[in-house]
């Protein structure tokens, strides 16, 4: 149990509050591995209190305006320090088709444990934390989201799918920041759904699943399925997706695909659920999410 003290933040560090992206990346270039950016702080400060991370430099992104906000310009571009609550409000109030089909991301945002966490936590922070149980990652994976990573001298864009490496580990280099998350314009006739199962409502998921379906008449034109808390990183269920494409949608098909997706994952047993339970639930919620998403395409 020792040594932790959640009553205070024992760990000592220097604090930097850059106001431009350039300053922020310069600080990262300077301090490298000994630095950690902080946005909402709801993951980082907890990890520091639990003695899991001990950065000598904490670089606040709160005052870097370039990282904030949501813009719709062909793609939907979300600044990394946009709060989950702002994103949720944007998704549930402002979007027209085809972006209205991003329902699952709205549902995932609302599934964040509490209102306070939703307000403090940021989308970029949630992704950079690289928790296998991230709620925001599965919907983004089904949208083929891409992330922009920026260092002082270089900028690169990669598919979110390649961003997650392991629990707590991403493709970010020590001098890079995640600046934006970009969701390409969704296809017409598409819809999505997100379902999360947890012990209690305000909790980390035992399993979560997001699906996105694109319809062509009664046929499934395209399909995406992604799950959380079932592998070291949030994952797509590619084989299950393939079996959907070109098929006529039916409840029986959804049932079959749910089971197929469950076979693809490799969950572990931990304090929140056993492997067997996760596997069972994955089939149920993938099926239910498929049914819900299909209904939404109508």
């Amino acid at each position, binding site marked *: 149990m020792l040594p932790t003290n*959640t*009553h*205070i*933040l*024992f*760990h*000592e*560090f*220097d*604090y930097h*509050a850059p106001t431009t992206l350039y300053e922020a990346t310069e600080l990262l270039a300077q301090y490298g591995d000994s630095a950690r950016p*902080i946005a909402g*702080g*709801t993951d980082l*400060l*907890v990890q520091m*209190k*639990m003695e899991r991370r001990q950065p000598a430099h*904490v670089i*606040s992104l*709160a005052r870097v305006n370039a990282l904030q906000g949501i813009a719709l310009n062909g793609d939907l571009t979300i600044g990394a320090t946009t709060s989950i609550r702002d994103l949720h409000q944007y998704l549930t109030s402002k979007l027209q088709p085809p972006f209205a089909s991003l329902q699952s991301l709205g549902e995932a945002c609302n599934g964040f*444990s*509490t*209102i*306070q*966490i939703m*307000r*403090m936590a940021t989308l970029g922070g949630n992704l950079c934390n690289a928790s296998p149980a991230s709620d925001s990652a599965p919907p983004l994976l089904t949208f083929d989201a891409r992330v922009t990573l920026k260092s002082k001298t270089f900028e690169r864009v990669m598919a979110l799918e390649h961003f997650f490496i392991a629990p707590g580990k991403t493709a970010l280099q020590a001098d890079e920041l995640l600046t934006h998350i970009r969701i390409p314009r969704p296809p017409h006739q598409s819809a999505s759904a997100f379902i999360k199962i947890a012990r209690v*409502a*305000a909790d980390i998921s035992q399993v979560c699943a997001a699906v996105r379906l694109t319809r062509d008449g009664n046929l499934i034109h395209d399909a995406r399925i992604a799950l959380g808390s079932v592998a070291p990183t949030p994952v797509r269920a590619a084989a299950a997706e393939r079996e959907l494409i070109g098929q006529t949608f039916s409840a029986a098909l959804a049932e079959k695909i749910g089971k197929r997706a469950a076979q693809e994952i490799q969950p572990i047993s931990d304090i929140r659920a056993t492997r067997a339970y996760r596997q069972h639930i994955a089939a149920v919620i993938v099926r239910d999410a498929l049914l819900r998403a299909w209904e939404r395409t109508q």
Partner: protein
Amino acid sequence: MHKKTIHLTLNGEAREWSVYPNELLLNVLREQEYLTGTKYGCGIGECGACTLHLDGAPTLSCLTLAIACDGADILTIEGLARDGKLDATQQAFLEHSAFQCGFCTSDMIMMTRALLNENAQPSEAQVRDYLRGNLCRCTGYASIVRAALDAAALEKQRAEPSAAS
């Protein structure tokens, strides 16, 4: 690790603090300002006991660095009553006995206040959704929901003095 001087507004008053980077907003409020109405519950954002308003939004002060509050506007439970008059949320909690031990009462009231700021006439479902991150181990929440719903009504009543009176 060096102290830094920051300026902020606390319950409507200007403040200057000198803080280390690792000082938490919660502890500065409690130990330097003697504002102990905001509580430590779990230290990791799971219970909501440390909830206050930062720039108008409900915030967990156990996961907020004080140093990050330069220029911020902070409202705690102690700043809610104005001119000796209880806020409608406080009045409703009082009238419904919507507390037992009272340790979560500050955070429940601050959350209810934040909800009413966003949504003046919430439904029971909306109240329950908004308070989902605030633990109460005594009441079972029912009286808190009654108080929150009644606070909305009370506030409406205060805003529109009835023609009859």
